């Protein structure tokens, strides 16, 4: 769907993506969301059916609204290394790294992926726009930062048959792409950059292309995937998959430190359980001193996985230290019944010292049963993440299904 001709932003604030013409046509239930200034599909048919395309076949998801920045210049590597918590000097050309970046206090501003496109050129994919922060972070570095969200259309192709679909689509050598690797391909004159990345914790790829090629790529992928069960999915299905994969999401599991109004709502990577992303030995980076202090002192709370008794998702549940429900020790940030694991899973922010693996806590769950609310105290155990991690997500070359 092209933008309605002549509708200015004050009458139509949200942009269509280059795929909207197709996605809107395929949408059966008219369920859309606002995502970073775009309208995208939340549910095409039902979230459950779409979810199973991720875990069983191939799902196609319009990723265009993901905020993208081009970061280029002789100081790009130094700039990024000072910006984010991981060591970007170690990131090789043609590779992708997941990372977070913090403010001075060591609190997370956003998480995202960094693509090393060349020696001095990177792409930063973020959940939110932050040119303001990035440009201030660039003071003193020889680097140019431009938002390129509108210049690049993006699709996520995820699921066990996704590699097979790519091959059918005409991407030669797709099977050789390792996790977090980037490849550049030309298929019938369509230039596509493919990264073996995703937000589902399954085998999958993300495809990056010029907006003018977007519909052609979509159509050919749908045709190529026909016999492999390809199906367009909306954000709800993706959200189920990402919780199973233990991935965190901005404004669900944490709030950007650039946006919090109240004191004490910011979260550090250590609190989010992302210690493995923080490289204290690479030299200075934003928030390092504060994080070092926090590490020495020990975190006050941590985001953990919960295995909750029963089968009722613990949405928004408060967490208590015991079944009496007197001592509040945290709350659930994301929760679903996992259709694949057949477990009632949740991500929860829990105070020290209750967050260690194996610890038992209690979740206060409210159930709406035919308009009558019932309260349940459910036993829950702190467990390791991810909840679901199939081998196929890492195997290179992947199997065909």
């Amino acid at each position, binding site marked *: 769907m092209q933008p309605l001709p002549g509708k*200015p*932003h*004050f*009458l139509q*604030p*949200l942009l269509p993506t280059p795929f909207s013409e197709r996605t809107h046509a395929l949408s059966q239930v008219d369920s859309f969301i*606002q995502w970073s*200034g775009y309208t995208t599909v939340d549910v095409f048919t039902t979230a459950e059916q779409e979810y199973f395309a991720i875990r069983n076949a191939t799902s196609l998801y319009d990723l265009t609204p993901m905020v993208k920045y081009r970061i280029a210049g002789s100081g790009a590597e130094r700039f990024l290394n000072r910006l984010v918590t991981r060591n970007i000097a170690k990131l090789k050309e043609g590779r992708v790294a997941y990372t977070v970046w913090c403010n*001075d*206090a060591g609190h997370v501003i956003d998480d995202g992926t960094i693509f090393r496109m060349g020696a001095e050129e990177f792409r930063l994919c973020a959940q939110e*726009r*932050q*040119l*303001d922060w990035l*440009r201030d972070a660039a003071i003193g570095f020889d680097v140019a930062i431009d*938002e390129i969200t509108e210049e690049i259309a993006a699709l996520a192709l995820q699921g066990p048959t996704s590699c097979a679909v790519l091959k059918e689509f005409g991407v030669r050598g797709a099977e050789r792409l390792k996790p977090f690797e980037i490849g550049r391909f030309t298929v019938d004159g369509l230039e596509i950059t493919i990264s073996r990345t995703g937000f589902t914790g399954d085998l999958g790829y993300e495809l990056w292309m010029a907006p003018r090629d977007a519909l052609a790529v979509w159509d050919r992928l749908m045709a190529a995937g026909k016999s492999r069960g390809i199906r367009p999915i909306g954000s709800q299905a993706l959200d189920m998959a990402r919780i199973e994969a233990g991935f965190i999401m901005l404004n669900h599991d944490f709030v950007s430190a*650039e*946006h*919090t*109004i*109240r*004191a*004490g709502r910011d979260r550090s990577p250590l609190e989010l359980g992302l210690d493995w992303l923080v490289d204290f030995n690479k030299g200075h980076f934003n928030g390092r001193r504060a994080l070092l202090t926090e590490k020495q002192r020990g975190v006050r709370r941590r985001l953990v996985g919960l295995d909750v008794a029963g089968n009722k998702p613990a949405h928004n549940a408060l967490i208590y230290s015991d079944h009496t429900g007197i001592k509040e020790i945290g709350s659930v940030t994301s929760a679903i019944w996992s259709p694949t694991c057949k477990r009632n899973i949740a991500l929860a922010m829990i105070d020290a010292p209750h967050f260690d693996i194996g610890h038992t806590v209690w979740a206060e769950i409210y159930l709406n049963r035919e308009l009558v609310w019932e309260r349940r105290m459910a036993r829950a155990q702190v467990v390791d993440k991810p909840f679901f991690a199939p081998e196929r997500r890492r195997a290179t070359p992947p199997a065909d299904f």
Partner: protein
Amino acid sequence: MTASLSTTAAPQRRFDAIIVGAGHNGLVAACYLAKAGLSVLVLERNDYIGGAAVSRQLYPEFTYSNCSYVCSLLRPEIMRELELPRHGLQIIPYEGGCTMMRDGGHLALYDNHDALRREIGRHSKRDAEAYDRYSRDVMRQCKFIKPLLMRSPPDPTSFKPRDIMELLYLAKRFNGMGEERMYDTIRFWTMSAADFLDEYFESEIVKAHFAGSSIIGTALGPRSPGTAYVLLHHYMGDIDDAVGAWGFARGGMGAVTKALAASFQEKGGTIHTGAGVERILTRNGRGVGVALTDGTEFYARTVISNMDVKRTFLQTMDAKDLPDEFLRQVRNFKIRGSSGKLNIALDGLPEVPAIPKGAPCTRGDMHVTDTIEMMERAYDDWKDGFWSRAPYIDMLIPSQIDPTMAPDGKHYMSVFVQYCPYRLANGAPTETGWDDTQRKAFGDTVIDTIARHSPNFKDLILHAEIRTPWDIEREVGLTEGNIFQGELTMDQLLFNRPIPGYAQYRTPVKGVYMCGSSTHPGGGVMGAPGHNAARQVLGDLRLAA
């Protein structure tokens, strides 16, 4: 609605409390006292109530909010406790706002976050995103200050338990912000709006648009330290928890005081209009009542003045009842006329070529000052005793949203003008104030300024009321026509407002209180001073609020 003296056969002379002035704060205080069971009399000099919150018909079929024109600061607690919605008050939010630029461009503000981002992004992509940081920081300050509005400031020099407790409360709240934000707060309260905005934005038009509220009603320029606070003062309001939202009162600003009066009268209160107070009467060093200009006297053990401090103590009280040092401080209290107002009846909606057709931003505040420098130069004119040659104006056409303000197809426009001096350097100000030629020249400056952005504006004018600070003083009774009853500078805020040592609504004379905007937390149609004063009175009378 109001009972005037002449229609009352045997007027009651003795009340528990008398309130001098039926402005919004006087009426709020009156309501709370009546609610606590006191017999309360409100005396108003004009033939109509409302003070600076009035709706007036000065041209047939048009309603002018001819003084205050925006309703955002009125505390929701007061609206709820006094049941103002039931008494007819309804507040409708603005749908946007805009600044028209000299080069034909514009910047608009929209409620929708994405529309706003794309709009600011037309001027600077970075500023569009910095806006989130800006509103976050303003919101953080609002959250810190909001609870303080409805509290009496402590006296930092006092060792009384109440003052010490209140200081500790302040310290605790401040401390609760965390180290970094405490420093931010110190800076925020003391810096200039221009410097503050420089820390967020790069685009001149974006800075100019937001700087506007830092000068409204104040005799400072956007580069004067302390104006960042004034900016916040205008943002402190909230409509249904949307902090910073501005709105119209349906039926004009008089709807606010009308609802207050109805609430008051339902509680058994009495209002006399056309009853100007000549003197606050004292006996043995305590307030006992008031005498009207016609000689009538009313008696009460509590007299509360809704007038500003200069009017209260220099014109309505006897100097010998007041300590010299206090009088000196009252004379030193800064109440400066810096704003004018035009109320215009229009034959139709003016064209504004700068604004794209269909953009809702004209249903909010419109401006024509596109740089901070322009604003600062406007202030320089005022310092020299002239009205600004290129004034900052805050104009609204409420009749677009509120059909009660003007006949169908016609429109009422409210134009607030910054800066306009009380005294002109060249000639005026005499006993008779501004003469008609000067007043007209001032009005023409404003009308020409608007006409530069609207080709058919002048042709549409049916009637224009031009109000200089001198006119506002004469009609409303505000000294120098200052809309805040006193500058909102650091030396006149919190425990310094209005006079150090007298920030808790009491005066040196027992039984005489203040409840106007001269007191904490200051001006704007907020109602907090009235509420806080009533609580102080009831506390002193050992009655629960």
